[in-house]
């Protein structure tokens, strides 16, 4: 719900200093979403893979060296990369549910005028909305990823795992941030382009699915995976392989994927910046 639905009340607390004003918007956005039961169910479901993988780590620790023979029970960099890649299914759904209406509903209710008439800037507004998405997209990715790593370390009897895999922490952080920012900014950009959250949600799904289909057809026609950069999902996989030091799945260079994702993120941020205005002049 935009600000105008909350009504006016005198503020009896402390005034927030300017650098943190975006947090007010983020906090309110988080509060409103956690009140929705269906959204909470989705968040709970997104935790299931974390539970399954925690059990896998536990079993691996119990079984010991024999675990190394079963690839599924090998706790290495790929284990964490696979976890984050699989969580993209949930980040996709969460991005649609939480993100499609974030700006679209404000545009529809003319709430931007109200927001921007308060002592917050456009940047505060954008950061605030982005903060909502980053929070909920980090919950199924970064947070459980780090927790899994912590579990893997804690369940060991010595520091061998940590010594050999300390760099995986940075990979988890980096890959999660790439996933979160890509999904968050794209859905925010689409949400800012329309007053209909439905249109934003479908467009978001269309962008992801169509890029994958485009890759499928191109790779069939050109008989190569060098065109993998066409698909957003493939680009994310390539970056994941790069960060987790794996051989890339596709023949497309990883730096191309990095550039494409960076362009997508920057382009989306620019769109949001252009669209977030107090007044829209219609000729």
């Amino acid at each position: 719900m935009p600000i105008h639905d909350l009504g006016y009340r005198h503020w009896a607390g402390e005034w927030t200093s300017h650098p943190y004003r975006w947090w007010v918007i983020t906090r309110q956005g988080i509060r409103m979403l956690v009140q929705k039961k269906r959204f909470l169910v989705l968040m709970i479901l997104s935790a299931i893979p974390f539970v399954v993988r925690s059990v896998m780590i536990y079993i691996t620790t119990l079984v010991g060296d024999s675990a190394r023979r079963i690839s599924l029970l090998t706790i290495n960099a790929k284990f964490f990369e696979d976890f984050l890649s699989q969580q993209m299914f949930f980040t996709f759904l969460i991005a649609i549910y939480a993100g499609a209406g974030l700006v679209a509903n404000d545009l529809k209710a003319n709430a931007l005028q109200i927001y921007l008439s308060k002592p917050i800037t456009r940047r505060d507004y954008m950061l605030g909305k982005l903060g909502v998405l980053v929070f909920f997209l980090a919950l199924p990715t970064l947070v459980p990823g780090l927790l899994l790593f912590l579990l893997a370390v804690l369940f060991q009897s010595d520091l061998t795992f940590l010594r050999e895999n300390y760099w995986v922490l940075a990979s988890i952080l980096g890959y999660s941030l790439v996933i979160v920012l890509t999904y968050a900014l794209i859905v925010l950009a689409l949400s800012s382009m329309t007053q209909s959250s439905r249109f934003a949600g479908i467009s978001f799904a269309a962008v992801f699915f169509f890029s994958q289909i485009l890759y499928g057809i191109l790779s069939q026609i050109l008989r190569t995976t060098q065109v993998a950069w066409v698909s957003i999902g493939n680009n994310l996989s390539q970056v994941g392989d790069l960060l987790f030091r794996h051989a890339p799945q596709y023949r497309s260079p990883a730096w191309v994927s990095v550039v494409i994702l960076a362009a997508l993120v920057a382009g989306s941020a620019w769109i949001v910046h252009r669209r977030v205005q107090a007044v829209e002049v219609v000729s």
Partner: protein
Amino acid sequence: MSAGHNLADGWRNVRTIAFLTLDTLFWSKKTIFVMLISLFILGLSILGRLIMSYHWIRAPFTSAQVFAALMSTAVIHFLVLFVTLFYGTALVSEEVEGKTLTYLFVRPIPKPTVMLGKYLALIWICCLLVLPTILLSYLILYIRRDMSQFLEDFRVLGIDFGIVFLAILAYGALFGLIGAWLKHSVLAGLVYAFGWEGIVSYLPGFTRKLTITHYIQSIFPHEDSASAIAMLIGQRTDALESVVTLVLLTLFLLATASLILREKEYILEQ
């Protein structure tokens, strides 16, 4: 009043609502978005044609193979799905969100007429946006000096048009129903289109018959298609049975959507 007069009035009301809906749905950002996707598909056709014409890769493929790949993946499993999802879920939901449903409900017309009119508009829009894309792709891939293959495959194009039309009818009715029934119709539609159909259509036995895509694939005419399509088309249902099922399913979904529209109370937020 005679039955003929009632029918004439009923058809007039359906037409009025269809034009009203067409105007609202067509002139929107959705249409620009769909046209962009269509342009991409045409771009792929052009690319395929250029590759064939200038032999850019060693392993050549035929126009039929490229067209089949485009039809199966880009058109039927993406464009048709998205167009019907986009517009189908919006039929009733946008009236509710826009609070204009009141104007239609406080009129002396049965609510199922409203649903029928909107559905008609949906079919028009979807056909208008999808069928030219298929025709243009076909022309791009097939036109050459020797037109014999063009004419031979024209029959297949006709069948493709028919399949896409049936797909639009069935998916349109389904997403129209979802839009009339559920508040979060987009998510539900996406879960069906890319969750249910994506998974269940690969399951063995009778289960695959619980998807619309199974019947579409059963009447898909392209025999010399890419391996992906061959993999998708497992056990086919008889073509006539598929067509009849799709038509009956469409009627059933449309009737259910009309019933929901009739009985459901739509609370327009103040």
